[in-house]
């Protein structure tokens, strides 16, 4: 297949884990919770997903376990920032330190220190019969693991939820103006907690995807900054499901391009390509106005008694 076709396939491959984590952050930020601990959540999700898949042989159980542990760890963040009104950024960073260390610890305790690299069987791809034989597009869209289909589905669900349902609009209002929402009877605290559950689950799934559907081994640091790129993707995608999908594809494209250009020996230092997602985000933020810059009450603790 041509260079371009392989490049696009690679972009989609690399975009999927990012998509899960970015959607996780979307749900969190839409309720006003800025969670920068995605990297840590994905790290522990990937470890637990790998471990469970290794022990049970089922990639699905691994994904589920990754989601559960992501929720559990994110509850620390949720409790501290929602109920105790502590600083969200610091807690996000604390999760980024705590969760990968915990993951590394669990790996060491379970697997010991042999040099045998533990491997698992990856989740099987499922081709949609008929559709998958379309040249190129077939492979791209219809011959992937179920998790990829799930990711696409999730984007559609998200767009409909936030755009068209009353519950979604209530959800968004919590992030824009929680006091007004409270006066309308919307359960602000409950929605914030729900957003943290969703965030933890999806970030954990994104991490588990890395070790059950992508690589068949676990290595420390395998999340490789995706948690922070996801933050960029949410902004770049203007806090909408569709925008985030495009942002993740774009960032996946940049990453895939950087690798293929290295193989083709392009000459420009590869770090410049790795900078693209971050610079692009800053540029986007410089161009769009403050009004469109995300939930207005993002990052602020909600105190019921405050005027």
């Amino acid at each position, binding site marked *: 297949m041509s260079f371009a076709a392989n490049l696009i396939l690679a972009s989609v491959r690399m975009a999927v884990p990012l998509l899960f984590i970015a959607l996780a952050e979307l749900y969190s930020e839409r309720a006003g919770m800025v969670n920068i601990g995605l990297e840590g959540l994905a790290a522990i999700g990937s470890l637990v997903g790998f471990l469970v898949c290794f022990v049970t042989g089922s990639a699905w159980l691994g994904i589920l376990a990754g989601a559960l542990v992501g929720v559990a760890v994110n509850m620390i963040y949720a409790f501290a920032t929602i109920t105790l009104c502590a600083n969200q950024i610091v807690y996000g960073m604390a999760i980024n330190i705590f969760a990968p260390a915990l993951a590394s610890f669990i790996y060491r305790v379970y697997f010991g220190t*042999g040099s*045998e*690299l533990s491997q698992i069987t990856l989740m099987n791809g499922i081709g949609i019969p008929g559709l998958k034989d379309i040249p190129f597009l077939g492979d791209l869209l219809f011959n992937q693991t179920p998790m990829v289909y799930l990711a696409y589905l999730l984007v559609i669900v998200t767009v409909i939820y936030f755009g068209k349902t009353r519950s979604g609009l209530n959800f968004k209002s919590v992030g824009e103006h929680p006091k007004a929402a409270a006066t309308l009877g919307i359960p602000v605290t409950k929605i914030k907690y729900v957003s943290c559950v969703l965030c933890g689950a999806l970030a954990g799934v994104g991490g588990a995807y890395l070790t059950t559907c992508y690589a068949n081994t676990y*290595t420390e*640091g395998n999340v490789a900054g995706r948690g922070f790129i996801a933050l960029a993707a949410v902004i770049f995608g203007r806090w909408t499901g569709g925008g985030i999908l495009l942002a993740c594809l774009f960032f996946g494209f940049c990453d895939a391009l950087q690798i293929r250009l*290295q193989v083709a020996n392009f000459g420009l230092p590869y770090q410049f390509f790795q900078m693209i997602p971050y610079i692009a985000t800053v540029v986007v933020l410089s161009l769009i106005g403050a009004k469109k810059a995300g939930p207005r009450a993002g990052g602020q603790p909600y105190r019921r008694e405050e005027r």
Partner: protein
Amino acid sequence: MKKVLAVILALTVVLGLAACAKTAAPAASTAASASAAASTSTAASASASAAASGDLTGTKDFKVAMICDSSISDGGWGAACYNAMVDACKRSGWSYEVTDSIDQSAYYESIAAYCDLGYNLIYAPGNQYTDAVLQAAEEYPDIAFALLNGAEDTPGKATNKNVSSLLPNAQQIGWIAGALAGLMTKSNTIAFIGGMELDTTLGKYKGYTEAAQFVNKDVKVLDPVYAGSFSATDKGIEFAKAMIDQGADVFFGDASAVDSGARQAIDEANKASGSVKVFDIGQPADLLGQNECVICSQVTDNSSLLTISMQAVEDGKFGGETIYGTLQNGVLSAGKMSDLVPADVQAKYLDYIDQMTKDTFMK
């Protein structure tokens, strides 16, 4: 009020679970230690369980400590170096300890901590520790420092003459892999994946290229690619896919966990095409059987380099030199070959290895 109680309750639950975990853990750690190289628990101090990964039960009164920035469970460089130390200690009767997964800012402190605890030999597996090792060597003149893959001029920089570089011969490493790659390639395109652009990596690439082109005039070696890290498995997957698209059918690397990713991608490609056509040569341990695509490995016996060092420390003669690892002294070798290598190719390859050992290769 309720919230404070909730916090206290949550913490009690956590502590309770941890206490329960204690009774469950011994079962887990015995299972783990059966597979790990650590010995059974007899020692007084803390390092009895596999999770603590050290062993102070040597027969002699000598101790070696290893520091490592990657994890020793990475299935690649870190693991190979750690196991080399464990083997060497078993042979020499030494005790060992390890601190892994440390940040660059903590290299010096970790070394100094072991020096303060009276360790006799500090083992640093990589060029990146050179600065920290030289600093510590300055301040602890009575302790020996072995720098694996250290530069040849590093021992000379230590004024106390207590630093030696352990240098597996990068060119011969490249030769061992390159000769087989040149013989096995059908598409006449072979590939090399690096972790970081170290000079030892470049030396290996050069050796790989010249050996392959010597045994097979038509072979083309793709330019080396660098993942920029030794743990980015996903980059290995992508690199391998891209290079297979460019026609490469034999791979070699110097990138630890990145190479594991590459092997996974190669296995996937072979499965998709129906037969094993793309091969991989593993390193630095004998990886035959780990992945379907591995046809052979370039084996570096770091433990014998360490054993030599330990012997020198015991004799009081350590320091100030570069100890080479070569085919000639047995540190480097070719591993077992898989059945995918036809018998006549195996014979040719072993002949080349013999030439390399006798120093008549490419002459």
